[in-house]
């Protein structure tokens, strides 16, 4: 029997965590993702890690892009990843970090489970290609 056509769309959550009021970058990436044909959910500003986890789990996103310019990434990002693991959502969520991340912190973040860190100067296409190639299902 025919099951109708399958329509798979990449779903992303673009998230701002913690006390960081700068979301121009997040807006730009949200629009670029949308124009690439992704479905983008934007978290809004000043979200707590558990809010991000709640959103990522309920929306069942393929990609979680966390934008941080405040310098608190070493505290906040692992908390989000822990939360995802708690709900069994970490394995198939591609976690990306964008914003101002010092080079020496990158390896720690990756060790914690971040797939890639995108700093200033990254082209939109580079990020989009990375998502397309690395989405985990």
């Amino acid at each position, binding site marked *: *029997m*025919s*099951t*109708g*056509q*399958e*329509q*798979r*769309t990449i*779903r992303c959550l673009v998230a701002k965590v913690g006390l960081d009021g700068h979301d121009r970058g997040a807006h730009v990436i*949200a*629009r670029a*993702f*949308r*124009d*690439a*044909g*992704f*479905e*983008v*959910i*934007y*978290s*809004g500003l000043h979200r*707590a890690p*558990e*809010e991000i986890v*709640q*959103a990522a*789990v*309920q*929306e*069942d996103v393929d990609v979680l892009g966390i934008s941080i310019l405040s310098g608190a990434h070493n505290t906040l990002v692992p908390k989000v990843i822990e939360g995802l693991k708690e*709900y*069994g*959502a970490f394995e198939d969520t591609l976690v990306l970090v964008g914003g101002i991340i010092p080079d020496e912190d990158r390896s720690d973040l990756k060790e914690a489970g971040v797939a890639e860190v995108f700093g200033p100067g990254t082209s939109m296409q580079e990020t989009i290609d990375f998502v397309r190639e690395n989405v985990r299902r």
Partner: protein
Amino acid sequence: MSEARVDDLVSGILDGQHRALARAITTIENRESGYRDLVSALHAHTGDAEVIGVTGSPGAGKSTLVDKLAKRYRDCGLTVGVIAVDPSSPYTGGAVLGDRIRMASNVGDMDVFFRSMSARGQLGGLSTATADAITALDAFGKDRIVVETVGAGQNEVDVVRTADTVVVLVQPGSGDDVQMLKAGILEIGDVFVVNKADMDGASTTVADLREMLHMRDGSTTAATGHHGLGAVADEEGGGTADAGWDPEVVETVATEGTGVEALIDVLDDHYAYLRETGELDRRERTRYAEEIRQLLRTDAADLLEDEIERHGGMDALVDEVQARDADPYTVTDRILTPLADCVERRRE
């Protein structure tokens, strides 16, 4: 998707695992293989949730109101599911789903399950996907399910029709809203909310609405044969408006939560009315009939697509017709006759 995977999702949902529910809705949205088995398995566990549809023009305050509604329900100890439908780009298929930002009152409360869905551009398919997502939330055990959508077109109207009670949101002082209401949204509302009721012009909007609703009632309950017939035809068309219920107009200020309690009282009243009059059953029957027809149409269309391919594809068929070797009727007969024969044989 394998059978075992479907079973996992079903037992996960019945167990109350949020992850399973989220994954099930994705499966439904993507029309992944096995989604039908999934929905079939869940169907038996549904029927306990009250479904509320909320529609209104962009910026009317739907998401904020839904947030406050969910909060009130939670305060009463009820669990809530929310499906927020946003439009998607007809060009790229992409979408920014922004309703979640407004869900500030229910942060960290996993018993409010909020899910954004995009229209994904297919006519009719959206209402099927939404209805299936409601099935998943219902089977999960949510007491109240709110479906939120921009009331712009047929697609959205179909979506709110999957609800037991339809709430239409209007903001004060915009002639556009009244225009929108004239265009048909007026007929589908059971409850009308004038949000931002602290704004200038709110009382005018309330008065205008009451008058229009009065006219609507006048046309459906009038004893004149002509109008009476019209009303009957409306109902057969699956319209949710009903003469036995006087649509209420409620004023709210969603940002402050003012009027939300009154709205919940009205929603409860409406649900009680539906149950007492048997209208709930009737609406459900209409809904299922519509759903079965929709599925039949989709499946029949898929079957025909396969047959067209088997006959060499649409291009080849068009070539024949264009070269005057055949005509559209002959081609259609050629494809359909074997199918009809098959059906005939199976029937005996």
